[in-house]
């Protein structure tokens, strides 16, 4: 087999050569991907992309300015491993190649992002269920245009205020359970296009104002006799539909923010799996290329060095520790599954009968498609890995406030508890506090937000700030309570704050 072009400089030609070679091997392994597009960008553009949460046509907001500054400073200080990979869940799937990458690094990014992440986006059930890869770019373009037009019409300040409040509620602006979809993704885009056109054409401020008023009046919820029980967990959805103080355009802005948040919802739930999958495949594909003599030793060394850096897991007491590295955990978990398929031990056959001895490509594919981080860890974390990562459980509790307690270590007794504990860390209710709109008082329209406590975990000190934003969008006072079961098992509520919107 002929070695592919070596050396440290990339050119469009040699990128294409490597791309083709990788694509061929990916196909042999059965990876199913969207068509690929590789965008070559400058470091500044990479930072741009990062700070607009990875979306090239994000709308403008001052917080993205702040992100840009933070990211470029840490990039300049050499702090952030300003990752060399950024990829968009869309069709075609767009991967960013930074111009300053060496050829080896570009090859790594192609394998990792254009084939690893790409196939995950296309295959994993959460992505299939919650995102529309076809339409996202168009939608974003129109969203950005709509917001820009709102700024022209209503002023930058007014739009910024709405976005500030919407952003505060964004993590709670997603559906986690399917609602009957009124509009298909195509319909959603078409609807937004119409909104953009409407703003364009209805130049007469008086004229437009009449229309806005009509729509708002229809949604007046004042005609209620009893306390309206809402139980709505999607706070932005609730405000968009039910608030009587929002203008039409403001509702649309809330809608845009939550649509984008929804688009990212699967990412948050599959961090370990997605990165693990992409890392596993870049490693496997590049290893195969090396075995076939396509990559020379020089490049291989650089690739391995980069790979090792990515899958490092510092110990809890190391100064480099910043949590469990999803690349490290995910990569090893997929490798373990393969190992159990190809070379199962007795322990594997006992604990993982459905995996041991099966076809690893089929099993891996099945896992990728049907799990999310929480279930992935619960199902597939092996005792081997618990030992390898030297995992242990530390309990922190109000009862003993001067020390932590080691509850479990990586022996056979501790395995199941540790696995369960780690899986729970990826549970949505652990990552985010559980907050819902509970009730609305029909007479004065004060609203109660309930925080359903998890294991007695209180909200952070900034919760009242968020409630201020909510109250501003609702237009009436808002009460936030934390709900929990006391020792007798009776449900109790503690008031956190009561906030009226400022005039």
């Amino acid at each position, binding site marked *: 087999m002929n070695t592919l072009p070596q050396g440290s400089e990339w050119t469009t030609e040699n990128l294409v050569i490597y791309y083709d070679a990788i694509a061929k091997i990916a196909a042999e392994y059965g990876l199913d991907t969207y068509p690929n597009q590789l*965008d070559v960008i*400058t470091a500044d553009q990479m930072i741009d992309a990062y700070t607009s949460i990875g979306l090239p046509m994000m709308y403008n907001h*001052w917080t993205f300015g702040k992100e840009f500054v933070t990211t470029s400073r840490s990039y300049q200080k050499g702090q952030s491993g300003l990752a060399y990979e950024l990829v968009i869940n869309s069709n075609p799937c767009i991967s960013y190649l930074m111009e300053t990458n060496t050829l080896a690094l570009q090859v790594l990014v192609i394998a990792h992002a254009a084939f690893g992440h790409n196939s995950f986006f296309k295959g994993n059930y959460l992505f299939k269920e919650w995102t529309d890869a076809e339409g996202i770019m168009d939608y974003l373009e129109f969203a950005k245009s709509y917001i820009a037009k709102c700024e022209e019409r209503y002023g930058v300040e007014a739009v910024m205020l709405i976005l500030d409040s919407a*952003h505060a509620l964004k993590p709670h602006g997603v559906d986690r359970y399917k609602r009957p979809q009124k509009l298909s993704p195509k319909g959603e885009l078409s609807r937004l296009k119409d909104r953009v056109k409407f703003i364009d054409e209805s130049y007469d401020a008086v004229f437009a104002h009449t229309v806005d008023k009509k729509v708002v009046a229809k949604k007046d919820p004042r005609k209620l006799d009893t306390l309206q029980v809402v139980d709505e967990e999607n706070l932005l959805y609730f405000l968009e539909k039910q608030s009587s103080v929002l203008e039409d355009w403001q509702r649309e802005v809330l809608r845009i923010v939550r649509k984008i948040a929804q688009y990212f919802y699967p990412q948050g739930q599959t961090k370990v799996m997605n990165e693990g999958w992409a890392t596993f495949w870049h490693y496997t594909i590049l290893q195969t290329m090396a075995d076939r003599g396509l990559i020379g030793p020089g490049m291989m060394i650089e690739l391995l060095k980069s790979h090792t850096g990515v899958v490092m897991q510092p110990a809890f007491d190391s100064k480099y520790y910043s*949590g469990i590295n999803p690349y490290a955990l995910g990569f090893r978990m997929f490798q373990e599954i393969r190992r159990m398929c190809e070379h199962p031990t007795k322990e594997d056959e006992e604990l993982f009968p459905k995996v041991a001895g099966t076809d690893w490509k089929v099993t891996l594919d099945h896992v990728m498609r049907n799990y999310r981080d929480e279930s992935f860890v619960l199902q597939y974390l092996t005792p081997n890995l618990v030992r390898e*990562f030297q995992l242990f459980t*530390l309990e922190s509790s109000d009862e003993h406030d001067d020390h932590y307690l080691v509850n479990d270590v990586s022996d056979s007794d501790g395995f199941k508890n540790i696995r369960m504990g780690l899986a729970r860390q990826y549970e949505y209710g652990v990552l*985010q506090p559980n907050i819902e709109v509970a009730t609305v008082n029909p007479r004065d329209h004060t609203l109660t937000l309930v925080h359903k406590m998890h294991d007695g975990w209180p909200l*952070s000190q900034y*919760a009242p700030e968020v409630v201020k934003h909510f109250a501003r969008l609702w237009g009436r006072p808002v009460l936030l309570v934390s709900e929990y079961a006391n020792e007798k098992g009776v449900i109790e509520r503690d008031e956190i704050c009561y906030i009226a919107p400022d005039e």
Partner: protein
Amino acid sequence: MTTLRLIVDRRPAGSKSTVNRNRLVDRVRGYARDAVEKRIREGNIEDINKPLDVSVPKDDLMQPEFHHGPGGTRDIILPGNKEFVRGHKLPKPKGGKGSGGGDPSADGESEDDFIFTLSIEEQLEIFFEGMELPNLQDTAMRDIKSTERHRAGLTSDGVALDLLRSVMKKKMRKFGSRGRLKTKLDDLEEELRRMLDERANDADDPMIEALFKQIGQMKKTVSRGVKFDPSDLRYKHFESRPKQISQAVMFMLMDVSGSMDEDRKDLAKRFFMLLYWFLTSKYEHVTIVPIRHTSDAEEVDQETFFYDTKSGGTVVLSAMEKTKEIIDERFPPNDWNIYVAQASDGDSFGADAVQTAAYIRKQLFPLIRYMAYVEVGNGSSSTSALMQAYEDAKFSHDQFGMRSVELKEDVFPALHGLFKKESE
């Protein structure tokens, strides 16, 4: 299988973060302004040439979200256990930093204040915000023939359809006939053909482009079945006018006589340097004429003005006469907005001060827009001769401003006061 579209080079498009960054700077303008003013006050005047770090308290840029706070019972799974056994008690560090269960901060990053760096342009813009050249008027640039087409209202017949206004009219009227619009469309296309014939080489004439666009839009409208009445249609009216620009000249008059010691000269230079930065950062067409005087005046270049040393007697009038001489030679008032800025310790002899004041009133005010006088380092309790003469002359506030400066820190406020924006 690989097509050319596999690889797309985005680099030429450049970075898009400017808008967001500008918004960030707007948001923290107060802090930025304080930082810039502090730099000017305390540092070298040339420091404005370097980027400046601005520190903003974290709370002001906070992006709150609902997060879990510390407390309650939580189990956390950690890697890298070397020696602990079940039941081991690990002391909590003082300050109560939880091992991962707490809320690090609302935006999840560092505890520090947020620091960002202002570019030189941004510093200048912030610094001179709220300042302007008074009485600035548009003047024609004599040597350059340029005209622009300007919108001059609407007419009810013409060529360049204002689709927006026409749509408005139509909506208000709520009736029309498709047939008549189609006829109008035919007319427009005929007009376009004629225009293209006439100006065969002017395909990028903006008028023609505009017409193309209008016709295109109209066609779309027609096919959508919108009904227009000819009386609904409004056309944009254009006029050719000579291009207007604001052209200005600033005469900087510095007293370098014997009584202007190093400290005073430093204050004067500081003033002129700030003035220079103000003008060049804010205005496109400003010419500077530096004049220094002892008992006589000479025009010099900027380098000499700011860095050379010279000394001698004092005759303030000489500077004014020099100014008039140059105005007469090179800066006809019809074509130029003329400004004068003077710095001196006010020390003058005999009738010089009074004569100067009279000269200014008679010879300069008719020609100039505004004059600013800054007196430097007159620490004594008595008013200087020059300042007394200016006070007595009772110049109109519209055309004359006067400030006194003792210390470095006074310079910028003085400059700011002399060139404050009208509206504020």
